[in-house]
């Protein structure tokens, strides 16, 4: 266990360095970011901005400085807001995480019962209907789902506000949108994980000795299917955050996603780097936790 932990932590550190390198590369991808930021400025102004950003130093020096600052949460001041970029990102993070958690909760509430049911009653009409929903759901852009829900519930029936994040009623549409994007994904994972275990010997034995179907499914099958479900959902966390970025843009939710999309279009590099770095760190940490949890909860691996 401890040997695994050490190896896993080592990989975590290496991946973090890789993430920093990619985030660092965003600024340098164009070759000369200053020409991109102020295309019409005289050369003297450009040179002074280059100095201010430390762009005249050799790249390795810049990278080390970038990492040293990033660790302390310093990504420089936003070009646009003239405030520390890190603070601008972190103060919007709770909104994004709240949206994501709400969506995951909604998706699980739908996908767990439906996924389990279609695995248990495989090849029935209900299972086929669920498969159709999965296919449709995975073929729709999340931002379009959002606009369609907006069209129906906010424009047509005037039940909910079109956008914003002030009241509970304005939270519903974004959460349902991201939930609708997430549900088919979860349904597929839950169904296939349940199918892996539902016909195994011990499940058949439990049925044979007269355990009720409900107990068989929850206590015997689901408990053993739970680990792969958690792992795969953890792996899909990046997709979820990407969906959150798009959902926030559709509904003008004041989260990290909307801030980032704006910053990217305005070439506000400090915010872009801070935001991309922070979101990637969340994903890396979630993956680390899922891996550790997997070993911790799996008795056959714990002893090693």
């Amino acid at each position, binding site marked *: 266990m401890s040997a695994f932990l050490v190896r896993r932590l080592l990989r975590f550190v290496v991946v973090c360095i890789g993430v920093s390198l990619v985030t660092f590369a965003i600024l340098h991808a*164009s070759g000369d970011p200053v020409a991109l930021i102020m295309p019409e400025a005289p050369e003297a102004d450009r040179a002074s901005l280059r100095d201010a950003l430390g762009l005249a130093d050799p790249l390795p020096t810049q990278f080390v400085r970038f990492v040293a600052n990033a660790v302390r949460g310093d990504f420089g001041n936003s070009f646009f807001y003239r405030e520390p970029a890190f603070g601008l990102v972190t103060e919007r993070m709770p909104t994004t995480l709240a949206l994501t958690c709400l969506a995951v909760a909604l998706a699980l509430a739908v996908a767990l019962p439906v996924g389990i049911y279609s695995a248990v009653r495989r090849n029935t009409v209900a299972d086929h209907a669920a498969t159709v929903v999965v*296919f449709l759901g995975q*073929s729709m852009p999340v931002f*379009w789902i959002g606009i369609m829900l907006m069209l129906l519930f906010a424009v047509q029936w005037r039940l909910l506000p079109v956008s914003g994040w002030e009241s509970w009623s304005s939270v519903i549409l974004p959460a349902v949108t991201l939930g609708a994007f997430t549900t088919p994904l979860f349904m597929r994972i839950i169904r296939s994980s349940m199918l892996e275990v539902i016909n195994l010997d011990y499940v058949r034995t439990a049925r044979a000795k007269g355990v009720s179907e409900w107990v068989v499914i929850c206590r015997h099958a689901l408990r053993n299917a739970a680990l792969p479900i958690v792992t795969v959902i953890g792996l899909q966390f*990046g997709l979820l955050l990407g969906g959150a970025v*798009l959902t926030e843009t559709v509904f003008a939710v004041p989260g990290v996603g909307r801030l980032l999309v704006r910053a990217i*279009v305005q070439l506000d*590099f400090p915010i872009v780097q801070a935001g991309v770095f922070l979101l990637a760190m969340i994903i890396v940490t979630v*993956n680390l936790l899922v891996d550790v949890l997997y070993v911790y909860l799996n008795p056959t691996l714990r002893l090693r």
Partner: protein
Amino acid sequence: MAVTLSREGLAYEGSTAAGAGSRAWRRFALNPAALAGTLILLVVVAAALAAPWVVPHDPAKQSLLHRFTPPVWQTGGHPSYPLGTDQVGRDVLSRIVHGARISLLVGVSAVIVSLLVGVTAGLVSGFIGGKVDTVIGTVVDVTLSFPQILLALAFVAALGPSLVTIIVVLGITGWERYTRVVRAEVMALREKEFIEAARAIGVGRLRIIFRHVLPNTVSSIVVMSTLQVAQAILAEAALSFLGVGSGRAYPTWGQMISLGRDFVTVAWWLPTLPGLAILLTVLAINLVGDRLRDALDPRAV
């Protein structure tokens, strides 16, 4: 025993693949979902290829007299604009048909980039192993640590949005799935007897990779590529929706949805119809890919 095998004997694996191919094809063709997907896809591809000759209007031509004409089945619709017009009077049908071009072009090209990068990395990683494998594995881990759409968005904006940038960036941010699958297959194949036999009679490394390993991974690469095209089309739509598309000059579905969103209260068809085009195309590709997987999976016989 392996030593006595002639080179012709080694072709055995290839010949069964051909036999399995026609069986797989029959299984694929008999499925209604796969047929429907193929038909829709054929229509979309034909529309994209023939766009300039089949559309009723120039997709960029504005006609301020006909702004916000609803689709023809609604009151106020105009027969020469079957799917209505947008805020400056451009024909929605013509723009959707032209939009298919960008979607398919970007979808297919980005996947070719991913495929080249990902399959090479997977082959190298699985076949050489050791330190090289660790390095490639780390790069895969790092790639998986970013929301793809965000990374693509940042790099496309930093490099300057253009068709080529979008294709390359989507290709480079979506390669890791190939690497993981090809690597796993190579690892499994490496220990197989026919590879061992080839090695035993002195077949070179590259030849083993290209003649014996790669052909055996083709079916999973084909299946994955179909599904990846669907993902790339969705990603391109998201990029143009967020405003870093291939430019205003040529209509794309994502850009049409983005512009149409501002008029959602007065013209429901503007954001709705291009989205339906995406849905149909991606659904068709997903159906075909899914059935291909079932048909090509030897375990499902």
